[in-house]
């Protein structure tokens, strides 16, 4: 008994001394001291283990003890040991804390693919699509997430791609999200993907298919719609989820192709001029409303409507408006295991009115161009780690613009007219942090005389580090 008490006292003394030592230590972050801390921790754990062993030996009971009263099994010694162990655990958490709490969560996600196309000039125009015959680096994303202070959390995505051996690095997003503004408000500010619809805000590794839907590519460009700005949203005090979102963003560059975009680029033949932002009305405005409800415990429905209003650079006073609707329905049984099985159906519809021109260089008169399109996709997680998917795309870029547009290149012609695409795929997830996806695309486009264009992709995703959970 004395041996036990003596050992307990030693451990308690160690814990107390160690606690005081770590407080002093917190002021310094030298690597050697952290190593010392780890060693001390290991030593203390070993002492604790030996102590526990001793107590177990002293209190050794037969394996079967039908009449063993609870009090004996959970006596004071046991309780004291538990308290000590809890303290050790807390010290351990603290030792981790010296390294971790002020650092952001960091993850790196790589998305690669091998692609084969039936045509030399294929129809994949998304910057993060498999674009070339052979191997593609679709997207390598460095994601950092952390809290700034009691008011904001920050998310940062720095993205790299390699095209024809040339590496590009871009700051895709860095935005702050308010943690708890009053009156159910939330502020997002910085550089961010516009929360239009469902997929535009998702990063390529979140996509359920290897490439972007056609209509998103046509209306939001190869890189999706994003830009610096501010967004305010309000959660309505309704019994169900209902959120109103309003956003104002800069609408320049290749990340805002339906708006100010880049001088010299073309939209359905109209050459864009250099039109900088001069007034508040030259910003890109987005209202969005989104609701969600659960008809049963196993079904979730999310329904949204969005619009965009902003200037475009086909003239000095021309404007673009985009309207969209999105629907997501998911079934997952309440007795699922590790998230499987499930069925998820996602659909988006987009319509764009583009006041174009006149284009004096190519002598095209002013016109109101109308584009629309949709995609619908069904995913079936039929067994743990396996998901089968099917997506249908349709896009029509021939509304308005009666005058024959001047389309110099095949790539320009590919972005107008009708196009339909059918994409079955199968994804295998070895774990939550990796995936392999096989996808086939069967494409019919006006620009290719409605002849079938085929594409096959084998995609791989690898993720390391701590990546924050995604929204529904």
């Amino acid at each position, binding site marked *: 008994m004395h041996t036990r008490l003596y050992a307990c006292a030693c451990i308690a003394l160690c814990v107390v001394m160690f606690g005081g030592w770590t407080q002093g230590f917190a002021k310094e972050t030298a690597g050697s001291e952290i190593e010392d801390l780890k060693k001390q921790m290991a030593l203390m754990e070993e002492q604790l283990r030996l102590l526990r062993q001793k107590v177990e030996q002293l209190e050794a009971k037969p*394996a079967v003890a*039908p009449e063993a009263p609870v009090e004996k099994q959970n006596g004071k010694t046991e309780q004291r040991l538990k308290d000590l162990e809890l303290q050790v655990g807390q010290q351990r958490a603290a030792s981790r804390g010296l390294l971790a709490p002020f650092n952001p969560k960091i993850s790196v996600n790589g998305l690669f693919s091998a692609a084969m196309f039936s045509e030399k000039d294929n129809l994949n125009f998304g910057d993060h699509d498999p674009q070339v015959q052979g191997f593609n680096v679709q997207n390598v994303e460095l994601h950092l997430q952390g809290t700034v202070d009691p008011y904001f959390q920050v998310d940062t995505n720095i993205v790299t791609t390699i095209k024809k051996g040339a590496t590009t690095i871009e700051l895709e997003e860095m935005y702050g999200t308010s*943690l708890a503004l009053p009156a159910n408000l939330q502020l997002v500010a910085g550089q961010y993907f516009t929360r239009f619809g469902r997929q535009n805000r998702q990063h390529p590794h979140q996509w359920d298919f290897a490439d972007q839907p056609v209509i998103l590519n046509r209306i939001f460009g190869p890189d999706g719609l994003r830009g610096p700005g501010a967004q305010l949203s309000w959660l309505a005090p309704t019994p169900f989820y209902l959120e109103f979102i309003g956003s104002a963003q800069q609408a320049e560059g290749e990340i805002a192709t339906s708006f100010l975009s880049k001088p010299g680029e073309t939209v359905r033949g109209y050459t864009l001029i250099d039109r900088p932002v001069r007034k508040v009305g030259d910003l890109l405005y987005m209202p969005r409303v989104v609701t969600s409800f*659960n008809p049963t415990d196993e079904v979730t429905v999310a329904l949204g409507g969005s619009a965009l209003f902003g200037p475009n650079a086909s003239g000095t006073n021309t404007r673009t408006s985009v309207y969209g609707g999105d629907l997501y329905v998911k079934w997952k049984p309440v*007795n699922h295991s*590790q998230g499987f099985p499930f069925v998820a159906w996602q659909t988006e519809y987009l319509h764009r009115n583009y006041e174009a021109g006149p284009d004096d260089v190519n002598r095209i008169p002013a016109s109101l161009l109308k584009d629309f399109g949709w995609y619908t996709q069904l995913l079936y997680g039929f067994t743990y780690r396996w998901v089968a998917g099917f997506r249908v795309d349709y896009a029509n870029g021939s509304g308005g613009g009666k005058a024959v547009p001047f389309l110099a290149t095949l790539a320009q012609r590919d972005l107008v007219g009708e196009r339909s695409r059918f994409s079955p795929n199968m994804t295998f997830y070895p774990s939550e942090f990796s995936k392999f996806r096989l996808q086939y695309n069967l494409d019919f486009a006006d620009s290719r005389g409605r002849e079938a264009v085929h594409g096959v992709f084998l995609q791989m995703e690898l993720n390391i580090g701590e990546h924050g*959970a995604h*929204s529904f």
Partner: protein
Amino acid sequence: MRVLIKTFFLMGLLAASPLPAYAKLNVVATTPDLGSIVREIGGDRVEVTSLAKGTEDPHFVDAKPSFIRILNQADALIEGGADLEVGWLPPLILNARNSKIQLGQPGRIVAAEVIRLLEIPTGPIDRSLGDVHPFGNPHLTLDPLNGKLIAGRVKERLCMLSTPDCPVFTANAKQFEEKIDSRLALWQKQMAPLRGTKVVTYHKSYSYLAERFGLQVVNTIEPKPGIPPSASHVRDLVAQMKAEGVALILLEPNRERKTPAFLSQETGARVVLIPSMVGGAKEAGDYLALFEHIVKTMLEAMKERQP
């Protein structure tokens, strides 16, 4: 349009207005067993909503938008912690825009903070070890004594959130602790014949249960956390189970049954479905009933196994 604006303005005012003094505390629990403990302590002074269903896998709950609304209205949130809900809870809390349930607030209750966690990795870890939990095993409610500790923390926080009701919470907590003590004495007596029984579990969901009742977990059907069994692992497991005389295979009702059935057939061990949370079986309606059901099921399984 004006009517619409006025309507939204009024809705906003309603949302921002404080709760009346007589209102019940609105507590959200991530899992139903935590919800059940809060009900025991809060009694009729709290309204409890559990996000996950008792039949679900608590690691893989969908972050449904309807949960955002529920969390937005919460006076308190109780979570298991130790990364149990890391795959779905953080974006819900962020979007709930509720200052009462932010980290460090009395309304944010983390069960793992008061529990001596098992299986805290001591050596170096990485994901080659599977979906390993760096803070320890988070399936911590399956030890009735942990339930007592969690109840203590719940009482403490509810008292901070609603001081006038503190005597009620204290009395309820005392009553709950007494109930746990008396039932545990009975359960341990009933389970005494099982002390030292060797078992295999599917996932590391029953470590706390095993420790409390003296079961010996010799291996898991998953070779590593979250990784499904390979043929070679199953082969080795069969040999180990035969060699060590494993009597029971414990798994949650939502797990695949093919591998456990094969192991049972090969080794004679009996498959026992053990709900890991309240609501995981219809008999496990609350925290105490969960253990009643587990004890009964295990005793029946052992009885059926014996010739």
